[in-house]
């Protein structure tokens, strides 16, 4: 694999497709029961017991500020030492993305809400957002997670 190519798990979120670097992905699974948390932000659906561990579940549509939908898959991710689940509309498959075909975000779009998107591209005539591996979670998310885990 060339340095410019990166294997990603492509998931659907509304009209968009999102690519998540495969190095962060643990597995895909069907949605499990979620225990909602009081006072949690909108994107945090709550906690779900996955593989015997309580795992926070984030809503990708909420993160990307899209209309609420019905997720059909959970994707478990490992970010640094933290494991969390991402509720997505569906999993489209594992794709190898060539960075050369991707474009960086224009400066106008680089605001705080879009810090988790590294690049944009197309996939089968669909807008493809490449999520940042390290930046996946914004600080408020991380704080919320910390509060949730602490509670």
């Amino acid at each position: 694999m060339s340095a410019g190519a990166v294997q990603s798990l492509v998931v659907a979120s509304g009209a968009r497709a999102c690519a998540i670097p495969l190095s962060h992905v643990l597995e895909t699974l069907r949605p499990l029961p979620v225990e909602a948390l009081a006072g949690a932000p909108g994107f945090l659906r709550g906690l779900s017991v996955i593989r015997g561990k309580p795992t926070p579940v984030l809503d990708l549509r909420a993160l990307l500020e899209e209309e609420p939908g019905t997720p059909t898959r959970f994707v478990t991710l490992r970010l640094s030492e933290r494991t969390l689940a991402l509720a997505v509309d569906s999993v489209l498959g594992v794709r190898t993305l060539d960075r050369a075909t991707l474009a960086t975000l224009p400066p106008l779009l680089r605001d705080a809400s879009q810090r988790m998107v590294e690049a944009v591209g197309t996939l089968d005539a669909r807008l493809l957002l490449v999520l940042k591996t390290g930046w996946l979670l914004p600080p408020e998310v991380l704080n919320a997670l910390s509060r949730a885990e602490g509670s």
Partner: protein
Amino acid sequence: MWTFGRRIAAGFALSFLLLAAIGFVSYRGLSNLQSTSYQVTHTHNVLEHLARLTSLAKDAETGQRGFIITGDEAFLEPHTSALTELPSVLQELRKLTEDNPAQQKRLDDAERLLGEKVTELKRTIDMRKKGQVDETIKAIQAGAGKRFMDELRLVLAQMEREERDLLKSRGDEVEATASTARGTIIGGTLLALLVVLIAGTIVTRALSGQIGRAIQHMQSSSAELQASANQQAASAKESATAMSEITTTISELLATSRQIASSAQRVTHVADETSSAARTGDQTAQRTHESVGGIKRQVDMIVSHMLDLGKKSQQIGGILDIINELAEQTNILSINATIEAAGAGEQGRRFSVVADEIRKLADRVSASTKEIRGLIDEIRGAVNTTVMATEGGTKAVELGARQFTEVTASLKSITLLVGNTTEAAREIELSTKQQATAVEQVNLAVANVAQSTKETEASATQTLQTATQLSTLSRELLRLIQPDVA
């Protein structure tokens, strides 16, 4: 109630009874007289025989004395003939006085005295025959013979007195009987005359009174009869006119009822034809109803099969769900395998390819199941449409069947009603025929009545004449009975 007959009969009966009583009394008097005359004759006979007996005793003594005096046996002839006749006279006398014990006793004494006398006579005669004249005279002088004769005379005189007493008493009886008969005849005749006179007066009065009243009644009745006969004759004329009108009306009625009978016959014929047509219609409807029933059964079967097909489709859908579930699971597993293979680096690459192929297969399975689901949904839609269409058809068939049932019922009802109509028309026809017969009979009866009316008229005229004659007759009768009244 004393009717004329009874009164007349009672008068005649009383007269007859009186006449019978007179006759009976006369007859009994005559019988008594006859019987008494027989007894008188009998007494005379007895007296005669007594006289004869005395005479014979005298003859016997006379003969004895002559012989004794003369010694000539020729003088014995009276003696001998007297002795010969004596027993027969005694016997007859005994016979004649057998009803009188006193006379019989006296007769016994007389017979004994006669026997002794005869013995004494015989003894003296024998003595004289032997020539003992003196002894004979002495014997006579002894007076035995005279004594016997005196006693005999006494006895016979007693007997004669007895008989003469009887004769006297019988004469008195005859006188009494004759007097009674005379009195009865005269009194009875007078009484009968009186009774006949009274009865005649009563009957005549009754006859002239009651018959006169009856004849007066008869006169008034015959006058009434005359009036009523006049009235009857007038009524009979009116009746004859009315009968003529009735006859005309009845003839018209007869013609009308014949027309009705003919119409009823035509109605019966038409009703028969209608009944036949209705029966044919009923049979056709029955057959159609059976065909519709067959169609309904077929449609029910189709619906059943379609519902079965729907159920099967549902089952296929369930299987497809399982397949889809398996495909999804395979898809998840293959993605996870790819993720794992990516983590294994170069060694995982081939496994990654296999996993990707598996995922593709799972995706294709999933796509196929979707297609199949679509097809099944279409099939179910088509089945639903078919079921609905067939249910509509079933409903239409049921409606048709119901309508056919109604049609059949209507046809049956029509048949029944037509039957009733036929029956009613036949009854009308029959009744009308009977009516016609009855009317004919009435016509006949009316003709008879008309004839009777004519006869009544004639007889009323006759009655009138008879009443007039009766009136005249009663007047004449009244004149005969009560000339002063008439």
